[in-house]
């Protein structure tokens, strides 16, 4: 049959219709047809990573920075299995990622062929949805459906498994227009009756508090959130994923709540009389333990796009399904109608403002001689970067130091692995973010343990000219686990002392990248300038003390307001 489009032509045509400009991938035997199709393609840039996990994370970072779905591809078998961590990472944080995995030819499926893996079966529980395409006739329908599923409702990763023959065969079938699924119709328009009730509770509140999650950022609702908070005089606390939902230098911003959150924000959760939670799933890292003691006296309102999150972890008084954007916009509309019953929140507003400045003060870092600490490094990064800069993090102490000390002013500029907590996410995510926003400064706040997991992507960043900066907080330990061992496991540092640490400067240089070691606080700014001025991917090796802790924290089993290590907090 020589009629119609080849499978790979259909893939490229669909990608163009979805306005995909960048693909992160790594080839392999069964993926040769698709790579061949992209060989002379000028509208779609195919970025070669050095490990498939990097492709998934880069697509994820691209999606977080741009708001558009990130796309990655890998070959069958090991290529596909190497994507797994990155796909689950995206799904856990509701990030739209579409992954193409090659598969052995349809006739060979089930024969344990070379590089055959049951990708469809393996990716089923870690994605929002997945497809195994058995015929080129259904290919365009599948790809369009995959993009729809990934990027609507509660977003997530979608896998399209593409057998070799499906890529190569021709088909005259091409699906035009929107793909419809009988069982998929994400209801995003909030119920007006419930909105009205919620609006009333909010205006009647004397001590209103908003807890904003990543959903607010995903829905591009941050501007309206600020307006709502200002109107209500409500303090705004965020989750890790919600960082950037409100400018963190805004007087109503209270910072991050939860296990490694601010003491003040956590206490406010239990002091407010009405708690409005938007686009947040009450993860255990947010609520602490003892769920019944989370905002026990507050009227709890929970708005989320995913109805299965409502009443899942924390029972609430007013659940509402809806896209955060519509929810907040409509709430503002309804609240204005209740002008006459609006409570005076001036005292509360002052208290929130006071707490905001108190926390700012407590987190002010004064240079202590030439001592290099994570706090001073991140504060200097904060002052150095401009307002459009994007910061990514790895996972562990580096991430929590960044969450505390990096003041995020705009959405989509703090990119971190929340739900899955994936070490090695930050660097490839930074690469993806830089591809999405080439004009922005992009910096990965890393730990030595995390960076070593993905440092091969230096080759990607060099060959593809993606100049991001990696700031390694190098303490020769797996810092967060070591901190737990110090505090809760009698300082038995099992498996956390990293014996051999590479010379990160030489490592960078071996890839042709820029590397610099920093040992004094006074050298931080100069090093940052050198790195960004170099115009190439850079690694800054910050030698910090081996045993520093990120505090305060909720100890295992503790309630949201029972934090330890509150030495620097004036609010007690």
């Amino acid at each position, binding site marked *: 049959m020589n009629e119609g489009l080849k499978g790979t032509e259909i893939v490229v045509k669909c990608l163009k219709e979805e306005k995909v400009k960048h693909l992160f991938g790594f080839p392999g035997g069964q993926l040769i047809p698709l790579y061949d199709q992209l060989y002379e393609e000028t509208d779609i840039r195919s970025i070669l990573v050095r490990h498939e996990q990097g492709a998934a994370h880069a697509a994820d970072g691209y999606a977080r920075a741009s708001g558009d779905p990130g796309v990655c591809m890998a070959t069958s078998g090991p290529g596909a299995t190497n994507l797994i961590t990155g796909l689950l990472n995206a799904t856990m944080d509701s990030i739209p990622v579409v992954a193409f995995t090659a598969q052995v030819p349809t006739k060979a499926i089930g024969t344990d062929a070379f590089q055959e893996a049951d990708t469809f079966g393996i990716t089923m529980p870690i994605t929002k949805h997945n497809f195994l395409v058995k015929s080129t006739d259904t290919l365009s329908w599948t790809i369009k459906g995959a993009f729809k599923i990934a990027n609507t409702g509660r977003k997530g990763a979608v896998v399209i498994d593409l057998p070799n023959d499906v890529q190569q065969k021709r088909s005259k079938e091409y699906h035009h227009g929107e793909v419809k699924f009988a*069982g998929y119709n994400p209801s995003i328009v909030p119920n007006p009756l419930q909105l009205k009730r919620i609006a009333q509770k909010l205006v009647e509140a004397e001590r209103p508090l908003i807890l904003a999650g990543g959903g607010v950022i995903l829905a591009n609702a941050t501007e309206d959130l600020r307006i709502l908070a200002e109107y209500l005089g409500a303090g705004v606390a965020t989750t890790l994923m919600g960082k950037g939902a409100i400018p963190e230098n805004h007087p109503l911003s209270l910072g991050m709540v939860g296990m490694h959150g601010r003491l003040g924000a956590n206490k406010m959760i239990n002091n407010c009389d009405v708690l409005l939670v938007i686009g947040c799933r009450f993860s255990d890292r947010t609520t602490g333990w003892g769920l019944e003691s989370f905002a026990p006296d507050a009227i709890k309102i929970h708005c989320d796009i995913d109805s299965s999150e409502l009443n*899942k972890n924390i029972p609430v008084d007013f659940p509402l399904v809806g896209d955060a954007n519509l929810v907040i916009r409509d709430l503002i509309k309804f609240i204005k109608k209740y002008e006459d019953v609006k409570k005076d929140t001036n005292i509360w507003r002052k208290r929130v403002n006071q707490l905001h400045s108190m926390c700012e003060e407590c987190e002010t870092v004064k240079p202590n001689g030439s001592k290099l600490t994570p706090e001073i490094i991140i504060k200097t990064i904060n002052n150095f970067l401009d307002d459009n800069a994007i910061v990514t993090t790895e996972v562990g102490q580096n991430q929590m130091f960044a969450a505390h000390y990096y003041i995020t002013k705009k959405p989509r500029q703090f990119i971190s692995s929340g739900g899955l907590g994936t070490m090695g996410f930050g660097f490839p995510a930074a690469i993806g973010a830089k591809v999405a926003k080439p004009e922005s400064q992009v910096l990965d706040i890393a730990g030595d343990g995390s960076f070593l997991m993905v440092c091969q992507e230096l080759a990607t960043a060099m060959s593809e000219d993606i100049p991001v900066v990696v700031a390694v907080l190098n303490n020769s330990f797996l810092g967060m686990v070591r901190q737990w061992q110090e505090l809760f496991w009698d300082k038995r540092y099992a498996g956390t002392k990293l014996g051999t640490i590479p010379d990160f400067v030489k490592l960078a240089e071996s890839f042709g990248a820029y590397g610099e070691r920093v040992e004094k606080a006074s050298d931080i700014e100069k090093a940052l300038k050198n790195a960004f001025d170099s115009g190439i991917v850079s690694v800054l090796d910050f030698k910090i003390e081996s045993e520093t802790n990120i505090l305060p924290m909720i100890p295992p089993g503790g309630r949201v307001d029972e934090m330890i290590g509150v030495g620097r907090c004036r609010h007690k």
Partner: protein
Amino acid sequence: MSTQIISVLVEDEAGSLTRMSGMFSRRGINIHSLTVSPSEKEGMSRMTIVTTGDEREIEKVEKQLNKLIEVVKVNILDKNTSVVRDLCLLKVYADKENRAEVIEIANAFKSNIVDISIRTITLEITADPLDIDRFVETMKNFGIKELFRTGVTAISRDVEKKSGG
């Protein structure tokens, strides 16, 4: 904790059964029985799942099922207003000494004899699962050689609306 019957209408796609059962195992929910059959709608199957849980747990199951792309409709069946059936095939030991007694009991339970050999009788019964439990218990007295049950399938009763007046 009570037994709940969930009826799910799903699109007939490869993998939809795995996706369904996978959701149960991932969320740590036990499935007592699961039946899959064609439905009145072309391209759609009906799955009947029996599980245990309180109201809140079942609500969670319902929401998680609804999230699956292939799931079109989820119904939690009320046992009081549904017809619930299970089919059982049972091979019981029966020789000329007690064959008459086995047949008598089988008749009392309105079960059908579908096969007879010198040493066994094979019975078939379609009934409410609790009735089948009792039937099986009684037959244990004679010794059960083999037992097969299909698992529950169920349908809601239509409630007749009272005509005006």
